[in-house]
């Protein structure tokens, strides 16, 4: 659970983590610059457990996996959006950043509200207002990857690697 940071539509991966920082994949180094061209105070204000809430097409643009890694490294517990760009969606699932597609929740949350996201249960709770929202279910196959702990353990199992 954490505080909501609210953003609009089309938050692209260039603003989530600008290309000038892509010479590392260290999550703490990336986290220090997360969202800095959109919200220069985000990286210093975000606390572990906080939630990013945004409009449609979140994570559009570049395929850089550094984007979900930067948000995860910053302590973001989940991103709730009206919709996700497909490469960001895959990258988030693969790297273990929780995401929730829930348009009603986005409309029912204001910046600073306390929010809890239950990906497995498919719910978004606004603790400040007491409202509860049902998220769009993730496909069963995608939940298998989530439940395996991400793409790396999923492939290890598939390959029969101990």
């Amino acid at each position, binding site marked *: 659970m954490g505080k909501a940071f609210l953003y609009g539509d089309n938050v692209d991966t260039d603003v989530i983590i600008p290309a000038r920082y892509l010479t*590392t*994949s260290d999550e703490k180094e990336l986290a220090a610059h997360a969202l800095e061209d959109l919200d220069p105070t985000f990286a210093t204000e975000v606390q572990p457990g906080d939630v990013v809430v945004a409009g449609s*097409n979140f994570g559009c643009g570049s*395929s850089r*996996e550094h984007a979900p890694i930067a948000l995860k490294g910053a302590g973001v517990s989940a991103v709730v959006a009206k919709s996700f760009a497909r*490469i960001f969606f895959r990258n988030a699932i693969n790297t273990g950043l929780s995401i929730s597609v829930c348009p009603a929740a986005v409309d029912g949350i204001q910046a600073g509200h306390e929010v809890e996201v239950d990906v497995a249960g498919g719910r978004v709770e606004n603790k400040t207002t007491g409202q509860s929202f049902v998220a769009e279910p993730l496909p069963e196959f995608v939940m298998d990857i989530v439940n395996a702990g991400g793409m790396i353990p999923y*492939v290890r199992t598939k390959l029969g690697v101990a």
Partner: protein
Amino acid sequence: MGQTITQKILAAHAGQDTARVGDIVMCKVDLAMANDVTAFPAVDAFRKMGAPAVWDRSKVALVASHFAPAKDIASAGLMTRMREFAAEQDIEHFFDVGRGGIEHILLPEEALTLPGDVVIGADSHSCTYGALGCFSTGVGSTDIAAVWATGEIWLRVPESMKIVYSGRPGPWIVGKDLILTVIGQIGDDGASYMAMEHTGDTLDHLSIDSRLTLTNMAIEAGAKSGIIPPDDRTLEYVGQRQTAVSRYRDFDVYLSDEDADYARVVDIDVSAIEPMVARPSLPSRAVPVSEVPRVKVDQVFIGSCTNARIEDLRIAAHVLGDERVADGVRLMVIPATQRVWQQANNEGLLDKFAQAGASVSTPTCGACLGAHMGVLGPGEVCVSTSNRNYVGRMGDATAQVYLANPAVAMAAAVAGELVHPEEVRAEAPFREEVVLIG
């Protein structure tokens, strides 16, 4: 119910007769690509997956493109790691600095992406290859590592959006103007998760170079892929490339059934299209150049995987004529690949650009993503032939980027402001078949 070309390709690679839209299928991959930015996290993920070797060393391509030639010590390190991985795994298609260029223009030149293929690239513009009639899409580093380990990828069979272009394009119109028109109409997520299938009689008038621009910007509409069903021109191009590089592989030509199902059909009357400009800071903010104020520009960038092929450079050189780059304007010309660079050099284009006061560089993605070779400072205005004008994309967050075709870009370099290319050059460019050497 018939099937789209996309459904047919995915079904064939999943070992099925048909592929139903919305189903998740496991597809065998014909080519897996990564670049210097995406390869090193992929190598880390690959190690953790525990596979001893890539599934097929002849189906992996690694390309030094984004920060290449190394822009600083850290990026040199990224390329060293990619080079070491390529050597360790004996990767057949490793393209180092001076041997390749921007992957999305390079791989079709190298006859590595063929009709009917499933191509997966760790770069969002991997949708480009679809112009040759293959399914191709971008993924992140962990997904590409999983392909290296298993040779397969999971894909949700996408709905298709059919775009029907009709009419003959005007003299200044290239693929860029068509795709900016479409994105302006449907929006930045207008084709979310879909395959954009480009069709219509206009394609008869579009070179392969222009077609590759159409599919290149599928991602700017949120699409999973862009695809053009192969025709005679496609097959001629593919045959020419296979012969030129002596690389032959069997391929399958798929076409959509007459009764295939489309989630949406968009009709575009191309005869009415003007050169288009996407205003800051979204590709969907595209309008005809005549509707844009005569903005004064600081930099013009002719390059990127969208518009740095030989056709683009020829058009730019035509607009330039014997003029010079306007005082106060920096013109960056970056041919996409070593092969395009050599061809432009042989045709005298690079010398012409340099004589006019342009900075002409070695192939790199560089300026497009604000990495190097033309990073924008605070408040600067740039006209770019690339594909993204997002906040901070090409440098400082306050810089303003206008996306346009190479003729509009060169006209801005000569005039010092955004104008219709006709204001700089009365004669329209001569359309010639695009043929590459070697």
